[in-house]
């Protein structure tokens, strides 16, 4: 009986880890949006582009961070639970 429960818990753990990686799609979309907007703006006004590189990296980091959070949950579920 307890063996069955442990198997169910393991199944839940692995399925949860797989579901958690869905959040990384959002990270890809977010980073792509920011980088795409930066590129379209930089191609219209190339002289102003280097001044905004800092904002580009800050924006990319913010968008990527949330995706990394979900990847962290997936890794923790797989190997540390």
């Amino acid at each position, binding site marked *: 009986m307890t063996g069955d429960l442990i198997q169910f818990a393991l199944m839940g753990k692995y399925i949860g880890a797989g579901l958690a990686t869905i959040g990384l799609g959002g990270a890809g979309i977010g980073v792509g949006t920011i980088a795409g907007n930066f590129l379209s703006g930089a191609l219209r006004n190339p002289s102003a582009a280097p001044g905004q590189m*800092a904002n580009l*990296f800050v924006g990319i*980091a913010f968008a990527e*961070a949330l995706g*990394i959070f979900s*990847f*962290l949950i997936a890794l923790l579920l797989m*190997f540390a639970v």
Partner: protein
Amino acid sequence: MADEAGGLVIDPMHQFQIHPLFGEGPLMWYTPTNQTLWLGIAVVVISLLMLIGSAPRQVIPGRTQSITELLYSFIHDMVEEVTGHEGAKFFPYLMVLFTFIVTSNLLGLLPGSFAPTSHIAVTAVLAVMVFFTVTLVGFYKKGIGFLGMFWVSSAPLVLRPILALIELISYFVRPLSHSIRLGGNIMAGHAVIKVFAGFAGVMGIASVVPIAAIAAIYGLELLVAVVQAYVFTILTCVYLRDAVGEAHH
């Protein structure tokens, strides 16, 4: 983990374990561990880079001096541009943050080494230090007016309490996101490399494909190491600008 469902046994989390350097005793606060070793190596590397680089004091710098001068001017320009003229006095703290994080990240990429910044313990200490610094400096410079940062004066009056609450919550989430961004990026990168290495171990002749993937991800990890250090520092600059800078929101 090794005795569960058979097949591929990949344990990418074993590389993050902290164990003592000498013997297998209990981990007290004074035990030299692999983490303290690599933290010490990072400090030694930075010190050597800065000292050897600034030893020849030529007006037109040679090659070694150029490295140190480029690093110095890169951080100095960034701090002055983002934090403003008043915040330029925080330059030593930000220089230490950037060089320490970038050296720890890059040293963690050496084969067989240990990345100190992959542990939430290390990055949380850095982020909490930043949080306390920003809060204390804000209160010191502006007094109670520091709380005016949460009072959005460009919004309608009815929305201001709700916005103040949201701003307050996001202010306290800052150290959490700050630390997890750095720690999670480094830990995730190393874990992915280890997972691909596990694939390469069992695939025999076709292991060329995982090894090429490892090389690609290794390049990405080099970029992530530098970019994450830069992002940590520039976010600290932005928080300091909020605390030190203009009185209006």
